[in-house]
């Protein structure tokens, strides 16, 4: 019993902070999301409506933003995984001399302010930006590519920003793969490639799923970068929620969107943790 009590005491501070700063506001927000909104007057007191939630699913514009956000999350996650795995593999399995420089290189972007990094991408990606100018000067293209205010820009910017998280998760997972197990597969007739696909990759599944959840959740809730690289017109859910609250003062609609975003996040985390267990054969 003492064990259990001290366990509660140990997590109490964090629990309290979460309760006050997260759960309570969330519960307060819930009724708001069911209230009617009259443009110019604000919320209608004592009203109850499903309209705010129905609109997310039925209204073409909202639906497009939701799907775009999910597609963006998926895209950034896949890109981070594909580009991050080789880097993590090199950090863990490469020459020890390269470990520190590579790790620093991965972490370095985290030391820069988010706004600065996003501005950097704007400088690179705009119509008269570095990338387009270079390509035009080289004669590879005639007119500038559209790299901003669309999915391409957001994918590039967000992948860059969230790659470190993915790499760090994968490094931890790869370090946990026993070399003997890989050697065992090799002695049993597995080529290097087959060892990777049949042993290394499945054994890093927890890291892959963990990193993917992290990147996905961070991506679909990202505000600053999508706003800067997407502009005022190319909206994702986070920027839309921001606008509903701050520009239109439509709190009910913003709250409903927030809940929809949180709910879809939870569903995705749940599904992927089920997938890990099935894939890695671990409980």
């Amino acid at each position: 019993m003492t064990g259990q009590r001290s366990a509660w005491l140990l997590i109490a501070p964090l629990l309290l902070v979460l309760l006050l700063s997260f759960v309570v506001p969330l519960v307060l927000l819930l009724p708001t999301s069911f209230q009617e909104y009259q443009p110019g007057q604000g919320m209608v007191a004592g009203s109850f409506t499903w309209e705010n939630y129905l609109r997310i699913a039925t209204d073409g514009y909202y639906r497009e933003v939701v799907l775009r956000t999910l597609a963006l999350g998926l895209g950034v996650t896949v890109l981070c995984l594909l580009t991050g795995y080789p880097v993590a593999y090199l950090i863990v399995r490469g020459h020890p001399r390269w470990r520190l420089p590579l790790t620093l290189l991965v972490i370095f972007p985290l030391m820069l302010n988010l706004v600065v990094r996003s501005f950097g991408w704007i400088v690179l990606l705009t119509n008269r930006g570095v990338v387009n100018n270079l390509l035009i000067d080289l004669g590879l293209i005639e007119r500038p590519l559209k790299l901003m205010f669309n999915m391409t820009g957001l994918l590039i910017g967000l992948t860059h920003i969230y790659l470190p998280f993915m790499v760090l998760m994968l490094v931890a997972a790869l370090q946990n793969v026993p070399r003997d197990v890989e050697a065992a597969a090799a002695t049993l007739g597995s080529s290097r490639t087959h060892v990777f696909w049949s042993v290394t990759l499945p054994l890093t599944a927890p890291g892959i799923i963990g990193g993917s959840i992290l990147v996905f959740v961070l991506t679909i809730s990202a505000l600053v970068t999508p706003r800067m690289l997407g502009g005022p017109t190319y909206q994702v859910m986070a920027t839309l929620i921001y606008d509903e609250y701050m520009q239109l003062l439509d709190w009910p609609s913003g709250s409903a969107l927030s809940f929809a975003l949180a709910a879809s996040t939870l569903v995705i985390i749940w599904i992927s943790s089920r997938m890990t267990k099935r894939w890695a054969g671990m409980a």
Partner: protein
Amino acid sequence: MSNLSLRNIVKRYGRTEVVRNASFQIAEGEFVSLLGPSGCGKTTILRMVAGLLEPTEGQIMIGEREVTRLPPNKRNIGLVFQSYALFPHMTVFENVAFGLRRKGESGKPLEERVNAALEMVRLGGYGARFPRQLSGGQQQRVSMARAIAPRPSILLFDEPLSNLDAKLRDEMQIELKRLQQELRITTLFVTHDQAEALSLSDRVGVMHGGVIQQLDRPEEIYHRPANAFVASFIGKPNRLQGRVEAGTVALGAGLALRPERLDLPEGSAAEVFLRQEAIRVLRAPEPGALAGTVALRAFSGPQVQLVVRLAHGAEIVVEVPSAEDTASLAPGEAVYLAIRPRDIIVLPQGAEP
């Protein structure tokens, strides 16, 4: 199945030589152990045979095929690790099937061979379980089944019993012996446990400092150690200093031992190795027995250990079965130690560690 031969194998890391010019052959179906303290290079040799390390110099042949630079997957070997190294994400069945699938086996024949291998290590019916649901001993048996199922030409063991507790280790040792007799696969076994090496092997190679000191039948290793290292590493020997005099080794204070074999020149300094278990303890004098007094007595269940101080001051440790009358000898009492001439091992002094 085929023989394994190593020719002048050298492994260097920078300037340190971990294995120095190792050459030996294992005949088809033979069981050879490499025995030595940690860091003696035995595991390095095994990993080079497996293809997990590349030798700096020399050649490794499996049968007629040179495999020195081949990757492990092209060598047709089975390796059993100290850490078991099972695939945690696969069932026991899939673990054992892994090597067979790589050889293109599938369907009914695959199933039969996996089950036969599991049967052989007495784990039939465990196929659907995951490694983490098994005990250490069971996991090691799975890893043996996994190694033997694809019928490798060479079987390698890297300290396979070291992670098990003492009781289980004895059981597994018997299991291994049985398996080896049934399969007769050419086997290289690496261990630091001499009882394991001596009881399992056809021949034992004792290693020290990257050099194979002696490679011979277990009886030879035990009774006729080639040098001081082997003599002091195997068994629980007492070491005494002496000088060769007229067919005996004189220890001082009138004490002398008459060994069966004495190849050293008259008058040279000699080192005598007497195993604790080869010394008989007597209460009454006997011709050739060494006189002394009991200095210490320690009871350890089946055995009693006596520390006996000889007339010239040197101390000898002897083991007496606790059922013997002499087991009750107390410190201060006079004793006589009788040693059969063939159990007296004499080597030149100062040759080795």
